[in-house]
Structure formats: structure tokens, C-alpha cells
């Protein structure tokens, strides 16, 4: 048998599994988003009704708003702090040791980090204890139960866990930089900020783009952290669309509506992924 025919046998297991387990559900979810499927009665096609509900029903404004907050802050902070860590430790002695310690939270699963921060942010938790010790007792509160503190608290917990990977990306970028321009600028007396904004950031721009796109791809669809810490509550106040989708689908059994939410998330995801893949795949093919 010719190589090209044999190839189909080699690729078959992967293609069959991916089609059945991943691609079929994608198509089916897309179809279901146009129906009023509730898991019980025979579904009817209802056109774009689920989508208009998503945009016009006031009940869902909060999840959309929360998703936007998450998308912005849960990508901005991990990328920025990741860069600051990478930039600060690269010239220090024992930078490898710092790198390992800073990266440790990133090795923990989002679920485990969520459980841990559940205890830290609890009314009687570590964070309030520290605030009290430092004399800021009036600032203590129930961080996961008050609005809007709960969303920002969870973004903080998420940032703790998501920063490590960005630091790694920037370390790779910074290590590849030529030293001369930086040394020259330093000798000319360029201060920290000028150095960062005028010289270093422009030089590692590609890494900023990659890190930011990756962070965006991940931040708008965070589920685990939110589910473990608040389940989107209290009273659905900290829900994002990723949580809405799960709640509507698996607790309220509004399968049609849940599918429409999933499709909306996909549209956002595909936009971010398109730019990311374009960068990564072209870079790789040039490399070979």
C-alpha cells in the first residue's frame, strides 16, 4: 500500500475521536442555540430568540458586565505583574530560585487555588486577620459575599494563579534581548521608567502580544475559580457567562439558552484565537 493511503490509517484514531468527542458537540451546541430545548419536551426551532434574550433581558446584564470586567482585569494584571516579576528578577543573583518560587502558584490547579483563597477571603479568614493586625479593622468585610468586592477578590485569586506563566513568557523574551542598548541607555542615565517604556517594552513587543492574547483567551471564559469560590453567587451577582452557561444548562435545564451563551463565548474566543494562531503558526513555519 502506498504511503499516502497508509496515512489515513495512522491519522484515523485521532480524527475519529476528535470528530466524535469535540467537533460533533460543537455543531450540536450551535444547532441547539436556535431551539427551546429544555431536556424534556420535544424542542422547537425558535430562531434567534435565545440570543435576543441574552442581550435584552435585564437579568443577564450583570453576567455580561462581569465577563467584561474579568476579560479586562484578569488579563491585564497577570500580564503586567508577570512582566514586572520577569523584569525585576532577570538581573538579580539566584534568579532561578526566585523564578521557581514565583511560579509555584501557577502549578496549582485553578480549583485548588480557588479553595485556598476561599479560606483566605472568608470573613474569619487570613486576609481579614492580616488587615486587623495591621490596624485596618474597618476595612475587613466578607470579600466573597459583597458586591462588587466578590468579583475583584476572585480576580485577585485568579491573578495569583495565572501570573507565573506570563513571567515565564517574558523571561524567555528578556533573555533573548541584546544587552548593548540597555547598557548604553543605563550609562546615559535613563531611569527605570524610561528604560522600561522606551527601550525594553518595544523590544519585547511580540512577547507582550502573545502573552496578552493568551491571557485574553483564558480570562473571558474562567469557570473553575469562580465556581469553587462563589458558584457565581450570592444571588448570581458574581456570575460570568461561562458560569451562566453551566447554571442554565445543568441546573436550570434551559439547554437552548445555555447553548446560545456557549456560542457567544465561542465568537469571542475565536476572535482572540485567530490572532494568536496566526502569530504562533506563522512563527513556527518560518522557523522550519
Amino acid at each position: 500500500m502506498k504511503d499516502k493511503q497508509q496515512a489515513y490509517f495512522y491519522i484515523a484514531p485521532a480524527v475519529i475521536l476528535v470528530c466524535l468527542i469535540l467537533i460533533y458537540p460543537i455543531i450540536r451546541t450551535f444547532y441547539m442555540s436556535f431551539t427551546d430545548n429544555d431536556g424534556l419536551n420535544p424542542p422547537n426551532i425558535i430562531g434567534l430568540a435565545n440570543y435576543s434574550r441574552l442581550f435584552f433581558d435585564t437579568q443577564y446584564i450583570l453576567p455580561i458586565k462581569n465577563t467584561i470586567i474579568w476579560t479586562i482585569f484578569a488579563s491585564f494584571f497577570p500580564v503586567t505583574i508577570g512582566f514586572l516579576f520577569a523584569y525585576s528578577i532577570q538581573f538579580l543573583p539566584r534568579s532561578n530560585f526566585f523564578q521557581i518560587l514565583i511560579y509555584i502558584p501557577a502549578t496549582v490547579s485553578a480549583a485548588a487555588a480557588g479553595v485556598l483563597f476561599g479560606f483566605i477571603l472568608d470573613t474569619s479568614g487570613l486576609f481579614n486577620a492580616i488587615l486587623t493586625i495591621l490596624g485596618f479593622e474597618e476595612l475587613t468585610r466578607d470579600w466573597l459575599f459583597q458586591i462588587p468586592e466578590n468579583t475583584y477578590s476572585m480576580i485577585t485569586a485568579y491573578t495569583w494563579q495565572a501570573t507565573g506563566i506570563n513571567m515565564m513568557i517574558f523571561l524567555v523574551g528578556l533573555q533573548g534581548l541584546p544587552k548593548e542598548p540597555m547598557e548604553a541607555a543605563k550609562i546615559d542615565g535613563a531611569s527605570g521608567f524610561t528604560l522600561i517604556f522606551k527601550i525594553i517594552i518595544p523590544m519585547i513587543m511580540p512577547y507582550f502580544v502573545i502573552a496578552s492574547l493568551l491571557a485574553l483567551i483564558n480570562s473571558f471564559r474562567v469557570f473553575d475559580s469562580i465556581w469553587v469560590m462563589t458558584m457565581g453567587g450570592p444571588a448570581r451577582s458574581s456570575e460570568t457567562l461561562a458560569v451562566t452557561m453551566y447554571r442554565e444548562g445543568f441546573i436550570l435545564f434551559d439547554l437552548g439558552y445555555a447553548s446560545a451563551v456557549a456560542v457567544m463565548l465561542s465568537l469571542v474566543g475565536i476572535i482572540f484565537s485567530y490572532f494568536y494562531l496566526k502569530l504562533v503558526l506563522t512563527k513556527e513555519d518560518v522557523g522550519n
Partner: protein
Amino acid sequence: MKYKTKEKIKTTFGFFGMIIIVICWIYPVFFLLVNANKTSAQYAKGDKTEIIFGNQIFENIVKAWNIGLGDGVLNSLFYGLVGSSIAVFFAFLAAFAIVRLKMNNGLWWFLLIYSGTVFPFQMFLIPLFEAYVVFGIYNTKFGLTLFYVAICIPFATFVLRGFFLTVPWELQEAAKVEGATNFQIIYKIMMPLAKAPLMLVFLIQFTWIWNDLLFGMVLSRSVGVRPVTTALAGMQSLYRQVDAPTILTATLMASIPTLLIFLLLQKHFIRGLTLGSMNAGK
């Protein structure tokens, strides 16, 4: 000279400043370790920052293991080892076919496989749940393993395709001239060459499976099937029935395997994870 001393002073200040920042940064881990070693009464009444020496943690480990975490750990080990191995093997064959057998429309086939990871996981949940119930594989180890194999294939194919693009063609051609079959080429030439990338992808995918919460929640229900993160999250929602130090101990136990993998892989990790985080992200 003056410039150099100035730099040295700056570095020293930076070094100690960074130590303080890093201590604050990993303080939550310290909190976890300290409080996993307390009794529930000590945790409830005491200062959360207080260190108590003793070996309460062993008692907590036994307690956590027995109230469901143990099953979760064993299940996730199974899913991670079996799911990741099979996925990497299938991906290896697929990448071999695409690159080394020069399939027609190879890029198209690759993108078909890869398209599985472009969509957010929410797109899979409902139809998978439905189909799993219909085919009787909901809440079975087979069902979860099957899903983990499928979800790990796209990224593994992505990395292994990259690997196959770098292998010199002379090797393959020489083997062909001597009459080797494609299977022999895979087994005798490619597998040994690919040891490092295979190991890397295996461990990255093991980590992904170990850390997954969502699909464990959707596709399993009983203690004997659900993975470790789902068991942990379940414990958290039973808070006040299970005491805080036990849950913290469980969190620690659920985090150790992935921490070990990171320490093991460290050097290769950067490249692997920067690629993998797209797949790993949730």
C-alpha cells in the same frame, strides 16, 4: 567605576526587596501548610498566622483521604496516566501521517484536529452529557478516559507535528531503501528520537487532566468515578461539615503531583507551557 558600584548597590537593594515581595507572594502557600497542620478547634479559635508544630497533618491526611479525596486521587492518576498516554500515542501517529507520509491536504487535516481546542469548553458540555447518557457511558471511568484522550489529542498533535518537521528526511529515506515498513520506521526510528517531546507532551497533558474540574463535574457523579478536583470542590461545598484544616490538607494533596511535575520539567517547561497554556487555560 562609579557606575559599577552604583549598579552593585542597586542589585543588592533589589535582591532583598525581591525576597520580601516573593515572601508575600507565596505567603498563601505558607498559610496552607501551616493551617493544614491544625485541628479544627485550633483553626477556628486561633490566629490564622500562628504556626503550630506537631503532626496533626498526618491525621488530616488520613481524614481527607477517607472522605473521598483518596478515590479522587486514584481516579485522576488513572485518567492522567491512561488518558494522556493514549492521546499522545494517537497524536504521534496522526502527526507522523501528516508530516512524514506527506498526506494530501496535510495542513487541512492538522487544522481539523486542532480546531477542537479553539472553542471554549462550554461548547462541548451539553451534547457530550446527552450522548454519554444515551450510550450509557455517563459516570463511567471509560467515558471520562475517552473524553480526556480526545481533548488532549489536538495540542499533542500540534507539538509532535512541530517535532516531525525537524527530523531529517535522510533517516527515513535510508530506512525505506532497506525495506523498512512505516510501522518499523515509527517504532525503531521516530519513537526513540521523539523521547523528549513525547515525555514533555505526556506530562503537560497529565497536568491538564489532573487539573480539570469542569468535565469531571459534567460527566461524572459518583465517588468511584469523579476526579480529584471535583472531589476537592465537593468537599469545599460541604464546608462546615468537613473541617477547614482537612480541606486545606486535601488542597495540598491535590496540588503536589503537578508541583512535582513542574520541578521535574522546569527547563523544558517554559517552551512547553507557553505553547500549552492555550490548551490548559480555563
